[in-house]
């Protein structure tokens, strides 16, 4: 067990953590904006899966990971319109709508997988390659961990800053937060509540699309139907445990990513503990985090409550 924390292996764990955190960061920052706009969207899991499937299909048929990313993100943006229609126009129970989307995504994926992939030679695809940043990647330890990653990883590290700036330093960000706290105030001023919520949902879906596509193209070597494996739910946990504040959410994400990275390496090194113990760690940690970090002071007041004019 102790050998996991020494020398090159430890650096490898940290580098893996950064790579594992990438899709989670994308999805979490998107979902954070959605939730700050008062929409309790639990379809992150299904949206990431859609992003991954589309990315896989396009990457294996065209050979271009960047085109695959673009199409995956567009598909997720389209999917978000369904959620917007059901939650904003019809004002249905938001969590049931999310549940339905998750079912739809996993069902369609399974259908597609059983029809085209199972029992055949799965199509090969080219994923994203690591890009070493000149000079910075030569720094010992840090160079390997932080500056020899994929382009999207660098983007994902700037994303929390961008989301923070958007939410707290721009007028539109203030309005989005207002939609989640007191939609009536915005409506009285003649600003569209539904329009902002629709855009917030779409931003969330697009970011989950990035997350799912990265998981496929930057992290995995083959497609499996349970590729997302609960990461979409961990993202929701991270937002609650992080009290809806961007940088605390990032902190929770890194806890999950570190646990998963340790798990992967423990399997490779051959620790005598069953590998299932490591697989289950992030989910146990999520319950511990939620039970321990109970501050909900920044939870949007109108989260999950459809806005109706009186």
């Amino acid at each position: 067990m102790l050998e996991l924390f020494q020398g090159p292996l430890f650096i490898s764990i940290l580098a893996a953590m950064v790579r594992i955190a990438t899709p989670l960061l994308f999805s979490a920052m998107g979902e954070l904006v959605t939730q700050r706009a008062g929409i309790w969207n639990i379809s992150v899991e299904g949206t990431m899966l859609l992003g991954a499937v589309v990315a896989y299909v396009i990457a294996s048929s065209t050979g271009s990971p960047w085109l695959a990313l673009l199409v995956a993100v567009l598909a997720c943006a389209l999917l978000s319109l369904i959620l917007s229609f059901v939650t904003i126009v019809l004002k249905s129970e938001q969590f049931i709508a999310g549940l339905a989307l998750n079912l739809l995504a996993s069902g369609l994926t399974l259908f597609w997988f059983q029809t085209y992939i199972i029992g055949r030679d799965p199509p090969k695809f080219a994923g994203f390659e690591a890009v070493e940043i000149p000079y910075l990647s030569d720094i010992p330890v840090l160079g390997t961990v932080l500056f020899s990653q994929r382009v999207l990883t660098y983007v994902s590290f700037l994303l929390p800053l961008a989301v923070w700036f958007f939410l707290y330093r721009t007028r539109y960000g203030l309005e989005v937060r207002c939609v989640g706290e007191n939609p009536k105030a915005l409506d009285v001023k003649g600003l569209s509540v539904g329009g902002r919520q629709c855009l917030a949902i779409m931003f969330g879906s697009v970011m989950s699309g990035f997350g799912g596509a990265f998981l496929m193209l930057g992290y995995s070597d083959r497609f499996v139907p349970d590729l997302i494996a609960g990461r979409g739910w961990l993202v929701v946990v991270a937002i609650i445990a992080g009290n809806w504040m961007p940088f605390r959410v990032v902190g929770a994400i890194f806890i999950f990513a570190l646990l998963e990275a340790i798990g992967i390496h423990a399997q490779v090194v051959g620790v005598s503990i069953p590998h299932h113990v490591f697989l289950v760690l992030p989910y146990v940690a999520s319950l511990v985090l939620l039970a321990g970090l109970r501050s909900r002071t920044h939870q949007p007041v109108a989260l999950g409550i459809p806005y109706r004019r009186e």
Partner: protein
Amino acid sequence: MAKAFSSLIVGAFGSQKALLGSLAKATPLLLVGLGTVIAFRAKIWNIGQEGQVLAGAMCAYWASLWIGPLPYLIAVAVLVLAGLAGGGVLGLLAGVLKTRFGTSEIISTVMLNYIVIFLLAYLLDGGPWMESGATVAYHQSPPVNAMLEWPTLFGQGAAKLHFGFILALGATALSALLLERTPLGYEIRAFGSNPTALRFRGTDISRLLLVVMLVSGALAGLAGAGELFGTSHRLRAETLLGIGSSGIVVAMVGGLRPSGAMLAALFFGALKSGAIYMRLQSGTPAGLVSAMEGLVLLFFLCAAVATRVHITVRSEAHA
């Protein structure tokens, strides 16, 4: 596509055997659906049915390993209770997390799903429940003791109806009675529609929440135990996964009423049973059924809103 759907219908209702198969598939869906109805009526969003079904089956399997030579009926009763207990305890755990730590049950039940799935994977793959002597890991337990299989009502082979069907029908009646005729049922409905009023009335909200999660999980657990000892006879994740999410759809489409859940369970049971036949006849994979469940749920949400609008328009016209 037409061939796929016609074989779906033949596979669901085409013969007595097909009909029995549909009823057999409806049995666990109805039990899970009833548990969901009870929780959702209180607006307690238990969506951990997948894990609770597994926990019920695991607990019953565990009980079957140490159970001594008992009279058959008593042994079956022990397995039923073990199934109820397994699912119930898992539901209760999420309930405790809610009452003690304020953890949203939506999140905790989903996390517990994953934890139970990994626990089962460990037990069947290298753990104590792995089939001994198997050279390839099939991720399944050895067959359960044949003396403990649940009694069959009708049919044989793939199309047989085990006595869990009677339990499910009984549970439907009991759930309807509970919700409509008992003080607890009144509290459940009141908690769903106006929790503040219930609090002022002096009801112990925590106790109510724990009881609802216990009952809701227990019904799902019974579904898992029934599938194991009535149908599959081997503990295996693949045969049990999917029952939970179908059960949620059954409850929603059934309008969160026990009687409605029964009709919806028959419909989705037929869909699942027909899908197996469809797969054999036209090669259409069964994943289509779960996609259809998601679609049905979405359309149901839209339809529910349409009727709500209709009702308000009419009541305004009367006023």
